[in-house]
């Protein structure tokens, strides 16, 4: 089997050039989906019978939670690929995925708290899912802190890749045990875990928002990776040519 495509994918130059082509289209799709999903969900979806308008925050909360967890697995996978095939690009992806994932986890927690106030009268409840989210945020913090603690970039990459993998092994155990802990201590008044079946009119905009968040995540990650590539390859000829070309265009425009 021919593996050259695989190694070509590991080249930062290849990544930069091929994403340049797709970037405008990707940005457009993301923007359209986000605007459409938000308008539909916030403006046109019917009001919830019990929660009124406050339920609409799920259009941010649910997609953010989805991507927060998916982002962790993506980060760990990128780290594993880096460890196994010693691929530079994959470490860059891992490094860039960490802050984005942490931000999404924080967004999920924040929207959850905002949602919780009108619904249960408290910003914070020790619900199983919220607690798991908080632990996920801690896992992200660990990877980020470890990454930046090393002076030697390679060592930082390898260390945080291993930590992300250890976290991946632990996430199912953590989620299961937090779930179990919650059923042990569950006070009778709070019930969040059983989601009521949603009306299709409410559910369809949610699907659009989830899709929009996937696109948004991809866009944010690609942009971050491109910046990181330019930073790391700043001494190579192709980046210098790129910079020269850009400055020439600027002068020409004037």
């Amino acid at each position, binding site marked *: 089997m021919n593996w050259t495509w695989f190694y070509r994918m590991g080249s930062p130059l290849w990544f930069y050039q091929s994403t340049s082509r797709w970037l405008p289209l990707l940005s457009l799709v993301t923007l359209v989906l986000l605007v459409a999903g938000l308008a539909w969900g916030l403006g046109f979806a019917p009001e919830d019978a019990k929660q009124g308008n406050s339920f609409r925050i799920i259009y941010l909360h649910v997609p953010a939670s989805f991507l927060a967890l998916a982002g962790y697995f993506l980060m760990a996978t990128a780290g594993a690929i880096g*460890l196994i095939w010693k691929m530079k690009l994959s470490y860059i992806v891992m490094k860039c995925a960490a802050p984005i994932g942490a931000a999404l986890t924080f967004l999920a927690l924040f929207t959850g708290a905002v949602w919780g106030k009108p619904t249960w009268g408290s910003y914070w409840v020790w619900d199983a899912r919220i607690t798991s989210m908080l*632990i996920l945020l*801690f*896992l992200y*913090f*660990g*990877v980020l*802190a*470890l990454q930046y*603690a*090393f002076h*030697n970039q*390679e*060592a930082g990459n*390898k*260390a945080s890749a*291993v*930590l992300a993998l*250890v*976290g991946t*092994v*632990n996430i199912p*155990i*953590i989620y*299961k*045990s*937090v779930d*179990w*802990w919650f059923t*042990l201590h569950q006070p009778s008044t709070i019930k969040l875990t059983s989601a009521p079946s949603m009306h299709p009119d409410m559910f369809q905009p949610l699907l659009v928002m989830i899709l929009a968040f996937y696109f948004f995540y991809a866009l944010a990650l690609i942009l971050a990776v491109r910046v990181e590539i330019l930073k790391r390859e700043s001494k190579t000829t192709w980046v210098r040519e790129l910079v020269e070309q850009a400055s020439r265009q600027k002068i020409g425009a004037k």
Partner: protein
Amino acid sequence: MPESNRGFSAYFRRDLLLAYRRRGEVASPIIFFVMVATLIPLGITPEADSLKELAPGTIWVMALLATLLSAEGLFVSDYKDGSLEQLLISPNMLVMPIFGKVTAHWITTGLPLTLASPLIGLMLSLPSVAYLPMMAGLALGTGCLSFLAAIGAALTVSLQKGSLLLTLIVMPLYMPIIIFGSAVMQYSIDGMAWSGPLAILGAMLAVAIALCPLAIAAVLRLITIN
């Protein structure tokens, strides 16, 4: 496997001997354990009924912190004096010496904590039915804590100020252990069968013994020497 057995016992015995020569340092986690137990009644309430409620969680949180406090030294001194590098270039498998070192760490922290726990139980008015489950849970749980802390210690070994970072990266991994550990005690206080959560702790220890030395070996090979 005589070669790998020698790796285990050589490092196991050496680390125990080192701990024995620095008996004062080995005692600090235990003293820490007892001191924090004194703070709880002072800070919250001396009332026996409330203390009883708090005891399982308190004991486990303290055990966790005490393990973390001592975990930094697992590999750092070996790293600084060059013996870790000698270990890395020895022909034998890396896993067995690591297993030996972590086991020695458990014997010098987890085991004394387990043995000292009845004293804390007394101070926190723990009902007498909970003593045996507490000790059984601590014996298994602190084993898991040692193995997980060792991963953190290996990841931060070459850093100047690794101890705080070590705490930060290992703490989230401790959540399942603290949940099931205190559940063992809670079950016994409530008069329920506590073998279930204890069995889960045992299972987690088995997984930790199988996987953690491999992870630690990989980490040490990857990032110790740069």
